[in-house]
């Protein structure tokens, strides 16, 4: 349930607000809902990973991956080992890690916030 709420609220919020709004959203919802620290982390990280992967997948396939490959070209010129990795999975993974870690850590902080005041 926490997972669904975070997914929906952050989808709507990110449409109007900067990307980092996922942090306070995960924090607040997990402070309110979560029973365990791991549960908070998993729900928020999972929700943002799902949302970002899903939306990025949609945008990327609409564009035949042209933008993604250009960005990949830019990064691999500066960070050489990226050259040897398959572009699509690598960059989707990087993105998922960024989004899920920000959300997951914020959710954990939210859970501990609640515990502190309990």
């Amino acid at each position, binding site marked *: 349930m926490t997972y669904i709420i975070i997914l929906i609220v952050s989808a709507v919020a*990110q*449409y109007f607000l*900067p*990307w*980092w709004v996922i*942090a306070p959203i995960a*924090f607040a919802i997990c402070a309110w809902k979560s029973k365990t620290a791991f549960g908070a982390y998993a729900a928020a990280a999972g929700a943002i990973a799902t949302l*970002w992967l899903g*939306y*990025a997948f949609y*945008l*990327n396939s*609409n*564009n*035949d*991956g*042209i*933008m*993604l*490959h*250009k*960005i*990949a*070209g*830019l990064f*691999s*010129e*500066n960070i050489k080992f990226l050259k040897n990795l398959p572009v699509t999975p690598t960059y989707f993974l*990087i*993105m998922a890690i*960024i*989004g899920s*870690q*920000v959300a997951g*850590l*914020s959710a*954990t*902080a939210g*859970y*501990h*916030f609640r*515990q*502190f005041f309990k």
Partner: protein
Amino acid sequence: MKFVKFIISLLAAAGLTYALNRPLGAVPALGRLFSPFEGFWQNGESKLALPPTNLQLEGVMEEVDIIFDDNRVPHVFAKNDHDAYFTQGFLMARDRLWQMEFYTLAASGRLSEVVGERALELDRYSRRMGMADAAKKVYENGKTNKIFDEVLNAYAAGVNAYIKQLKYKNLPVEYKIIGYQPEEWSPYKTILMMMNMRNVLNGGSDDFRMSNALSKYGMDVVKDLFPNYPSNESPIIPTGTKWNFTPVQVPAVPAQTTATLSTSETVAFSVPQHSPEIGSNNWAVGGEKSATGLPILANDPHLQLTLPSIWYQMQLCTPTMNVYGACLPGAPGVVIGFNKDVAWGVTNVGSDVMDFYQIKFKDNSKKEYWYNGEWKATSMRVEEFVVKGRPESLKDTVFSTHHGPIVYNSASDKNINQNVPVGHAMRWVALEKEGTDLMAFYYLNRAKNYDDYRKALTYYVAPAQNFVFASNQNDISITPNGKLPLKWKEQGKFIMDGSNPAHDWQGWIPVDQNPTVKNPARGFVSSANQFSTDPTYPYYLGWRFAPSERAIRINERLEKMQKATVDSLRMLQNDNFNVEARRILPVLMKILNADSSETKNPAYQTLAKWNMKNDANEVGATIFERWIKELRYIVFEDEFPMKDLKSPMTYPSRNRMWDMVVKEPTAKWFDDVSTKNKQETLQDVVKHSFKASIDSLTLKHGSMNPENWAWNKVKSTDINHLGRLPGFGRQDIPNGGGAGIVNATTELNGPSWRMVVQLDKGWPKAYGLYPGGQSGNPASPFYDNMIDKWAKGELNELFFMKSKDEKSSRILGTVKIIKK
């Protein structure tokens, strides 16, 4: 314990979020960049994306229709001129905003604000040149012309209407990667954009290098090796054309024509050399030479090729005009194009319009300088640089004399510690304050006949261009045009004396006495940046223009051409014949030939069989081009070092070198002065350079075979991203050509727009394309969609609409702009 857990997890979460939301050195803010809601994913345009069918915008007076064709070229139908230029600004911003702003940052010396330290030297140079300052004054003067002011303001309003509704997620991806935001547009920025063109096309000088050669070898050698007119030329205005005017008095050549360089002085100039690759071709054949009986006009301006592309195609239709052509992002109107009745195009005029004066200051404060027997006050300006990544801004003091700004580079800055410091002031046509250049295009866009063309040209200042023209009244014409200084012979060939009034620029060639020709007997007009005229023209324009090979080839082919069609002119644009090889290869081969061991060399045999065309797959072209480069280096680098830091010079022209090879085979210049007890002969340097060429080609490309040594592989044309973002350009484009070839495609330069227009009493037929695409978005299918066709030398038929109601399968969609 609970508190500690909370604090630690909060710090971790907040820390990570913060870190991902801000750039780290060159790495952009990764969280924002990767977020699919805001970051680069949002720039991934879907295949045939068009804006919504209706746009409500503040700033239009009436409804505007924009029809997009299958190449995503917008055709703008407006009910008044204001709305047309407003819409042009809006559309260019939509497709090219980042590029437009980048040019203005470059011209005003502000690049380091967005890219940091690495652009600082370039910025210092641009600021010292004073382009930003000049742009402000140009606009102040220009806006007294009501039309000029209205056009520029309408255009700026359109750009700003686009910027205003931009959110971060829709920003061009370059802003996201580099990490900055667009600023408001203004007429001043359009002028800056034009300044950028003036700098690219007119911003080179050989004065300092020539002065070095003069002080080392004396006037006789310089006169011999650096003549004022080449032995081999085919000037733009055909030889023998009568000058139908009474020339004004040309200033007398003063007794002393150069500055007296003191030997204690070390000036290092970072001013770029005159660059012959930045040239262009244009021509028009008259009705008697064409299959239709009416003129056909062709133009291909050569510039450094970039993505987003230099040009943007558009049709603008209002009650006062209906014009189609190539536009410059950042500037209103069409620069190279056609309408129902006329077509026109431009190539660069290589006249000497940037001169340097040696200035003697009274003391280190540089407040006064010696001029005409007395101390004269300089003016001073402090330039401030905000550099990304630097906590404090930097300052640079720029002094100006009545000639112009004092320009020297950092190396010499440190050296100016003497009691009587010496500086160099620059006089440059690009800093001229009256600048209604855009009005020339405004009137050309609306021109109906030859007289309109002549009138339009009077508005043009700089960079001087060869304006070719053709009309459906069967007139053709070409005019090297712009503001040209009235000089004594050889004025500004060397650094001049800033204290001597006779060395000042003393006026201008009357604009109606600029060289021009209308309907010449030979039935065509053409230009390829060569000398504007033969030496009978009463005024001195400069001593070094682009080498004549392209001009010679174009003129000999047009000479023979009968019943010319669009396709015959298109083929000429793609002509790869090497005129230089025709002239000199047999001579060089004969020298090699004398030694039987050379004739067995496979490289020799390849050259012997070569068809003298720089086609993409030719190995002969690879060897020849490398060889003459090597030969020129070996012959001249010892005596006229180009790369010498202290006293750089320039080589005599290739034309002069070939004259020497043929007529003066025992000239002392063939000797390598660095070998003490040996006297090298022409034979030695020819053999040596041939061997060195083969060795260096082998080293770089492996042993000779048709694949690795193919000309296109070795030349390897790249179209890089304007901001040098790796992965955003296109590399190794397969095509032929070369610097002295009509198809002037080199490593980085080439035809930036190719156009052929067949005039007609009814409706013209036009063809064209450029190596890129309409969209500046690297993720758009229209970012680089014309490159492959361009490389093959094909052209697109341009869709020139008669009215907005015209039906065609080429129409992709229509957008209306409605007044808000």
